[in-house]
């Protein structure tokens, strides 16, 4: 048994905050941690409770240790929180992989395997509450053997802890395993036995939902569904962590609306197919992560040069090279902004979370189709696979607006009339519209040209899109906190989640979150920063890519840079420490 000192007294002040609970579930491959987390989240959503689940794996994606961290709440939550209210762990040694991801507070409830006497690691922190031990494992001659499903026993104990009825769990198990009676029966039996034995487990303050079932979606699913809603009808991709679920969701859902999906032979082929489909007039998209984005780079330039709409989603992971595939980072920004030879216009959008993702996809389609250029949508590992409980999305179908050429329109493919910034797109099949689309520099007619003057004129023509896009998107920003708060922070993408909750308790701060990174909403930023005493940029990038980029579009003298490498996202207490250090350095 544990060699730890006996718990002292319970500190009532350290009780979990009313309104939300954090559960950390840790196990090894085969323990069914992911399924357990899924079921708990589904039960929360069923009761009208909000929440999210972040999964964490060891160095390898499958097998090995895994953890699910859930936060369940009465209202929408935007990050998973810092300290866990419940830690359920089948083997104390499995915790080693999750240093920093799981922390106890003084009143955390720890549920452990009864026969496991390994000590809990120091970094975990200490709870004053006695731990609860339960015999999850089955032993034969002193060796652990296949026994009843541990995750089902854990589910029963968690239901006891949360005050959720067994009948709800039964319904969920029926829904999940109804078509496999043997599995259903085995799971139900394990659940029921643990439920009966679990009367002794301490209950936490009861969280009651509003009773109306809610909707669960990951960032990747939201990107896929947002794209379908916005009118994307062709997708080609290549498997890559952490973006694969975008393709998997589209395989299931795109053909039903008349679209096609191709799992391409490589990342280059995937974007090639996207350009081919879009050249054919069909809104098209690909999705990848950093290594794939590197490979797609040549054709980002081709899309811009040939003025073909294309959407490229990048679920950023820690890089460079293979980096840390399942870990988050915000360091593909430079690549999205600058990569590719030659000068060419493009758009870069950032995704805050799963709810925002659907909206971003509408905007991506609107800009790529409307302006005939590549649009990069940057998500990241933190939100890509995180499952979020949200209100049911509204029916929001869009119709892409690509200006199509028709007989009688200007005779040249790249002709501009008046103050237009795009030329009507010639969709194959339109009589009389035949033209040459080319990556080679070309005249207004589309004919190849090696003239410096033509090159200058066509660059001017293509770059005319950016000021028009900047005007259209000038208010694509979110701000948090009071307008007159003296201290300011700029962040983008998934850090928005933490900041939404963080700023609520810190009225002296305001936050600026651009939804479009390029072209940067400079006017909105300039108006927002008015009256600030101190300003910093926080980002998951060792090279401070957002800070550096902003200094090319606005005055960033004296603005602190709080960039660090990715891996884990930033927590509230870490941010406080980063800000204290940065402000100390600035002499304030």
């Amino acid at each position, binding site marked *: 048994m544990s060699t730890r000192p006996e718990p002292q007294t319970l500190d009532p002040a350290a009780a979990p905050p009313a309104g939300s609970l954090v559960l950390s579930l840790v196990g090894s491959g085969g323990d069914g941690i992911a399924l357990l987390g899924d079921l708990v989240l589904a039960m929360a959503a069923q009761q009208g409770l909000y929440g999210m689940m972040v999964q964490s794996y060891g160095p390898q994606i499958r097998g090995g240790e895994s953890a699910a961290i859930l936060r369940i709440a009465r209202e929408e939550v935007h990050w998973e929180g810092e300290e866990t209210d419940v830690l359920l762990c089948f083997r104390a040694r499995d915790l080693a992989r999750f240093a920093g991801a799981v922390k106890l507070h003084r009143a955390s409830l720890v549920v452990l395997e009864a026969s496991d006497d390994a000590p809990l690691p120091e970094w975990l922190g200490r709870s004053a509450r006695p731990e609860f031990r339960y015999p999850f494992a089955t032993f034969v001659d002193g060796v652990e053997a296949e026994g009843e499903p541990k995750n089902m026993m854990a589910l029963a104990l968690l239901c006891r802890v949360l005050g959720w009825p067994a009948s709800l769990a039964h319904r969920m198990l029926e829904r999940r395993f109804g078509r496999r009676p043997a599995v259903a029966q085995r799971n139900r039996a394990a659940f029921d036995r643990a439920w009966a034995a679990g009367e002794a487990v301490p209950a936490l303050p009861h969280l009651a939902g509003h009773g109306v079932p809610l909707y669960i979606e990951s960032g990747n699913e939201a990107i896929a569904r947002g794209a379908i809603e916005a009118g994307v*009808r062709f997708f080609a991709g290549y498997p890559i962590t952490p973006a694969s679920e975008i393709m998997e969701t589209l395989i299931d859902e795109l053909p039903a609306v008349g679209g096609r999906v191709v799992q391409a032979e490589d990342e280059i*082929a995937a974007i090639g197919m996207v350009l081919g489909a879009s050249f054919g007039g069909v809104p098209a998209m690909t999705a990848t992560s950093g290594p794939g984005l590197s490979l797609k780079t040549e054709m980002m330039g081709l899309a811009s040069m040939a003025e073909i709409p294309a959407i490229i989603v990048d679920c950023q992971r820690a890089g460079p090279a293979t980096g840390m595939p399942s870990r988050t980072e915000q360091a593909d920004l430079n690549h999205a902004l600058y990569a590719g030879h030659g000068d060419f216009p493009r758009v870069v959008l950032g995704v805050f979370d799963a709810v925002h993702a659907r909206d971003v996809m509408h905007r991506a389609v609107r800009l790529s189709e409307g302006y005939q250029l590549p649009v990069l949508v940057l998500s990241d590992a933190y939100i890509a696979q995180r499952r979020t409980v949200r209100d049911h999305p509204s029916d929001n179908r869009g*119709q892409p607006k690509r200006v199509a050429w028709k007989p009688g329109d200007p005779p040249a493919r790249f002709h501009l009339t008046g103050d237009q910034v795009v030329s009507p797109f010639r969709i194959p099949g339109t009589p009389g519209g*035949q033209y040459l689309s*080319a990556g080679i520099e070309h005249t207004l007619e589309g004919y190849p040209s090696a003239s410096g003057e033509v090159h200058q004129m066509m660059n001017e023509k293509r770059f005319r899109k950016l000021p028009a896009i900047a005007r259209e998107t000038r208010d694509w920003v979110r701000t948090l906190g009071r307008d007159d708060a003296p201290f300011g922070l700029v962040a983008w993408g998934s850090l928005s989640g933490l900041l939404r909750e963080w700023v609520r308790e810190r009225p002296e701060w305001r936050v600026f979150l651009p939804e479009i990174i390029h072209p940067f909403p400079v006017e909105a930023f300039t108006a927002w920063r008015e009256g600030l005493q101190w300003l910093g940029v926080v980002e998951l990038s060792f090279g401070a890519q957002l800070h550096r980029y902003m200094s090319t579009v606005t005055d960033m003298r004296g603005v602190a840079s709080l960039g660090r490498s990715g891996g884990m996202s930033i927590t509230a207490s870490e941010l406080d420490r980063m800000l204290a250090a940065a402000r100390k350095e600035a002499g304030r």
Partner: protein
Amino acid sequence: MTMKAKDYRSALEPVWCTGCGNFGVLKGMTQALADLEVPQERFAVVSGIGCSSRLAGYTKSYSFNSVHGRALPIATGLKLARPELTVVVAGGDGDGFSIGVGHIPHTVRRNVDLTYCVLDNGIYGLTKGQASPTTDPEFKRERGLAGIEERPINPILLMLASGAGFVARTHAGNLPHVRQMIREGIQYPGFAFVHILAACITYQKPEYAQRIWERCEMLPADHDATSFEAAIGAARRERFQLGVIYRRPPEDRPAVATELEGAEVGVWPPVGATSAPPEFPGED
């Protein structure tokens, strides 16, 4: 409406050298299109980069002269998105068999209805005469080109091994035959490969061109194009066999990828499952 070959020619004058085999390909292709009366607005040519890839611009079509080596994936996207189009892919041996070779087996096993015409002159002409994957080792030795020890690939074997359902070879100097092979390739329902031999007028000597021409012979009259074994035999012969080397009978599964149902790989919904184009976007 009777179509003529010149109806498929754009206003652009080819930049090819006088005497280049590409003229034969362009002529034969436009003749084949006229034979089939393919509507101009439903015709698309996708190409990569190289002398022969310039062909896209010389056809009156929705053509796309893209980047080096990527014509096949781009054409795949176009054809899958707009199945009612006739899509021809044009390119050279460097574009197709070197930088873009990775796309060949996958495009073949996906069996998208494309006609892939490769003008193979065994040289990088646009970049002034480097060795390509099909350059003869003897020629490399004579000219001091890189990779003397590297043997040329056999494009016909490559296509057959990948499971292509239609494999033909012709020579750019035999115009009626080029026309016939491209026409049959377009007519074939599925991925079709037309290998077009030629020489480079600028970077190869006339004797070399003569050697290639003399190495060609028509397939024997009794060649059974529906036999995979006969096709492999023809592909391995020392002399270049011209004609339809392999035409998979409709009832046969792909010769290599036999485990694949109908050869639709990684495409949802499967190729051929629907002939209707996706919901068409555009103006209100």
